[in-house]
């Protein structure tokens, strides 16, 4: 590092090989975001499959992986979600060491606020369910909240009556997560091919055989889709429908300031959350725009509503200017639980329907999809997340249970 510093950082070697596509791969993964790259890494590391390509339409980590607000947590309600998302959090806890890349995990805690007596009752039930699932959560009084974040306005328009905190929750740098998995996968021999758009999925007798891309046809024994907001587009290429709606979810950052907020704070009822990044920017998010969109830009009405909510919680932030605002296209499912596993087309697998919460699931998503692809059967942790649940009726309704924000 000292050598590169003296050389004015001009000669850093690339972290991964930028490959050109071969004619055939054992596994082709569509989408070089966190999930696609993590799946490739675990396929190579845990299952010994090395002949893998990860195809990316744009640039690596340029979709939702680079657009989210970096929040990591496992405070879900249902046992299936808890087991999966806590596995993901545990993998995050060891990720910097595992991949030898500092992902800047900061377990600063995530606090969920209650603004009425009834909401507080609901939050008690939720927090206790989390504890029954063997995951940490603590109820907090308004006084404890004030001590934790002195800038908060407890007597806001909807006064704060309490909340609960998951202290193991927090943030990690999202670009670093994508780069770390890319480098580790590349070291295992995985081909990462950017600027390579998939335009068609080839199938013969109900079995996937390859993909058509902007860089020519590629045949593959197995294909996995990890394309977030474009899940429906890829499913259509393969000839089946999925229960997802693509919407724009926006986020924004303020100009950087000195440390003033060392916890992630979220309010389900006024639909806003905020944390402070290591660079000092306040990172703000809210709900998704209300209509279908593939535009990767957020609407002004929701931006205004989100900022107004955050300023009601933290009046001091009104002095700050917003520096950037952007949006990612999220694929929302009816029960806000992801769709993972096999598809109606043989040898074609899917990891999608992540909606507004895919980032926190990257390590476990990659690990369980790698197992699912290698073994051709769902990993035990994701057995309930299959497409078949929409026919059997076994939905895992986190939207109702833990208020997954959309």
């Amino acid at each position, binding site marked *: 590092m000292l050598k590169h510093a003296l050389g004015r950082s001009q000669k850093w070697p690339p972290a991964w090989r930028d490959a050109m596509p071969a004619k055939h791969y054992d596994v082709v993964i569509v989408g070089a975001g966190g999930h696609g790259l993590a799946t490739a890494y675990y396929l190579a590391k845990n299952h010994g499959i090395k002949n893998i390509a990860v195809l990316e339409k744009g640039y690596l980590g340029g979709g939702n992986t680079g657009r989210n607000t970096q929040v990591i947590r496992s405070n879900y309600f249902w046992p299936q979600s808890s087991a999966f998302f806590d596995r993901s959090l545990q993998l995050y806890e060891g990720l910097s060491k595992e991949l030898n890349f500092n992902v800047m995990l900061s377990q600063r805690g995530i606090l969920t606020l209650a603004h009425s007596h009834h909401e507080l009752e609901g939050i008690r039930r939720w927090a206790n369910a989390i504890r029954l699932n063997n995951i940490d959560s603590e109820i907090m009084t308004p006084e404890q909240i004030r001590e934790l974040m002195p800038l908060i306005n407890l007597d806001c328009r909807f006064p704060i009556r309490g909340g609960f905190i998951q202290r193991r929750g927090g943030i990690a740098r999202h670009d670093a997560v994508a780069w770390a998995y890319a480098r580790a996968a590349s070291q295992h021999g995985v081909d990462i091919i950017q600027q390579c758009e998939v335009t068609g999925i080839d199938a013969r007798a109900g079995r996937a055989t390859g993909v058509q891309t902007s860089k020519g046809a590629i045949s593959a024994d197995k294909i996995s889709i990890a394309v977030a907001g474009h899940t429906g587009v890829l499913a259509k290429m393969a000839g089946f429908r*999925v229960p*997802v709606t693509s919407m724009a979810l926006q986020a924004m950052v303020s100009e950087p300031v000195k440390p003033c907020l060392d916890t992630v704070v979220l309010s389900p009822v006024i639909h806003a959350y905020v944390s402070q990044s290591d660079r000092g920017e306040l990172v703000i998010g809210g709900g998704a725009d*209300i209509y279908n969109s593939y535009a990767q830009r957020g609407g002004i009405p929701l931006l205004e509503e989100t900022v107004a909510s955050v300023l009601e919680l933290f009046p001091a932030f009104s002095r700050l200017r917003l520096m950037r605002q952007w949006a990612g296209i999220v694929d929302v499912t009816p029960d806000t639980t992801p769709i993972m596993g096999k598809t109606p087309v043989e040898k074609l697998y899917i990891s999608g329907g992540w909606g507004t919460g895919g980032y926190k699931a990257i390590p476990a998503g990659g690990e369980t999809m790698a197992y699912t692809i290698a073994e051709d059967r769902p990993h035990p942790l994701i057995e309930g997340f299959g497409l078949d649940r929409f026919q059997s009726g076994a939905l895992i309704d986190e939207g109702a249970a833990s208020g997954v924000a959309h």
Partner: protein
Amino acid sequence: MLQITCPYCGCRDETEYSFGGESHVSRPAPDAGDAEWSDYLFNRSNPRGIHYERWQHRFGCGRWFNIARDTVSHEIYATYEMGDARPDLPGKADN
């Protein structure tokens, strides 16, 4: 900010409206079977391109209507009443 033209009240801001999802989704027969019912209840066309969708002028006349809107450019190509057939939009295929 979308500018949506209500067929009854005229052009207003998006904030006056509620979104009602995909239009022209028809209910199957009661004995149609699980696959067809599941498709009706959960699957949506969710196109990257022209989307035929329902809106309600919630803070206006309160009535429902349909629009055809591009989900990439957000451009609105047609506005039509509930119960009307899907309009033909030549040269504006899904992409």
